[in-house]
C-alpha cells in the first residue's frame, strides 16, 4: 500500500500524441476564431483604436489601469495553480512556471503607458478593480478548488491567442492616435507574446493537462465562459464612460 498520491509521478505518455495535439489545437484555434467574430459583432467599446477623431482618453487610461490590475490579481492565483498542476503533470508545471516567469511583471509595461496617459502611480493604486475582474479572479479560485487547473491554463491560451492575433493591429491604431512613445510598454508586451511564442508555450502546458475526452470538451466550455466574463468587463467600462449604447453581450 502506498497512500502517497497526487505526485505526478505515475504519469505515462500524454493523452494526445504530438500529431493529435496539433490537430486538436487547430480545432481550438478555429473555435476561438469564431468567438472573435462574435466578439467583434456584439461586444461594445472594443474599437477605440480605430476612433482617431473621437478617441476617449479617460477610457483608454482606465482600460490600461484595469489591465495592470488584472495582471496583478491573476498572477497570484496563477502562481497557486502551479502546485495543482505539478500534482498532475510536472511537465506542464515546468512550462507553466516558465510562462509565469515571463508574465509576472508585465503589469509594469502597462503602468508605464498609464503614466504617459496622465495617471500617476499613486492615482493608479487608488483604482479598485471592476466587478467583472473580481469575478474573473474568483472564477479562477473556484476552478482550482473544484474543477482543476485546466480552466486556468485555458484562459491564458485564449488571451495569448487573441493577443498575438489582434494586438499588432490594435497597437498600429493606437500609434496613429497617440504616438509610438506613448504606447512603448504595450509594444514591448506584444513583442514578448510573439517572440516567446506564448500561445505555443501555453498550449504545451495544456496538452499535458488533457487526459480524457471530457477534458477536451471542458476546454471548449472554458473558452466560452471566459469570453462571457471578458465581455462583462467591456460592458462595465463602456457603461462608466457611456461610449455607446450597449448591445447584447456575446
Amino acid at each position, binding site marked *: 500500500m502506498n497512500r502517497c498520491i497526487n505526485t505526478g509521478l505515475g504519469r505515462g*505518455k*500524454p493523452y494526445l*500524441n*504530438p*500529431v493529435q*495535439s*496539433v490537430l486538436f489545437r487547430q480545432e481550438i484555434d478555429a473555435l476561438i476564431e469564431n468567438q472573435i467574430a462574435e466578439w467583434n459583432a456584439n461586444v461594445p467599446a472594443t474599437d477605440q483604436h480605430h476612433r482617431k477623431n473621437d478617441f476617449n482618453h479617460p477610457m483608454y487610461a482606465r482600460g490600461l489601469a484595469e489591465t495592470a490590475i488584472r495582471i496583478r490579481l491573476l498572477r497570484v492565483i496563477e502562481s497557486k495553480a502551479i502546485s495543482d498542476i505539478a500534482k498532475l503533470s510536472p*511537465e506542464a508545471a*515546468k512550462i507553466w512556471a516558465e510562462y509565469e516567469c515571463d508574465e509576472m511583471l508585465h503589469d509594469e509595461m502597462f503602468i508605464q503607458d498609464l503614466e504617459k496617459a496622465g495617471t500617476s502611480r499613486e492615482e493608479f493604486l487608488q483604482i479598485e478593480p471592476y466587478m467583472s475582474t473580481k469575478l474573473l479572479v474568483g472564477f479562477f479560485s473556484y476552478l482550482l478548488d473544484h474543477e482543476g487547473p485546466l480552466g486556468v491554463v485555458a484562459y491564458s491560451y485564449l488571451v495569448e491567442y487573441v493577443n498575438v492575433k489582434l494586438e499588432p493591429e490594435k497597437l498600429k491604431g493606437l500609434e496613429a492616435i497617440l504616438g509610438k512613445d506613448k504606447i512603448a510598454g504595450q509594444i514591448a508586451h506584444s513583442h514578448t507574446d510573439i517572440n516567446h511564442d506564448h500561445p*505555443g508555450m501555453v498550449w504545451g502546458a495544456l496538452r499535458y493537462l488533457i487526459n480524457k475526452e471530457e477534458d477536451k470538451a471542458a476546454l471548449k466550455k472554458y473558452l466560452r465562459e471566459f469570453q462571457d466574463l471578458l465581455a462583462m468587463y467591456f460592458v462595465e467600462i463602456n457603461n462608466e464612460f457611456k461610449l455607446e449604447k450597449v448591445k447584447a453581450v456575446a
Partner: protein
Amino acid sequence: MLHTIVLTNSAETLQLPDKSKLTDLSELAEGVIPFSCLSGICGSCVIEVECGLENLSEAEPVERTFLTSLGFAEDQYRLACQCKLFGPISINTEP
C-alpha cells in the same frame, strides 16, 4: 506537417509535427533521447546532427557555451531539449 527524424545509431525513423521539440521523440519511442531538465542546463540530451542542421531552431549562445564546456564545441552538436524541428533531420542520439 510532419517531419522525418532518422536515428542513425538505432536505425529508426520517426516523425514529429512541425515546430515540435526534439525531446518529444521520447513519446514515440521510450528512452530514445535521455533527458532530464528540459531547460538546457543538465546536458543529458546531447545529440549529433548528421544531416539537416538547418532544419532546427538556431542555438542560443548559452547553449553553445554549455556544449563547448561539455566537449561538444562543433556546430553539429545540440541539446535536443533546445531544438525545435522545422524539417527532416538525421541524428545520432549517443554521440
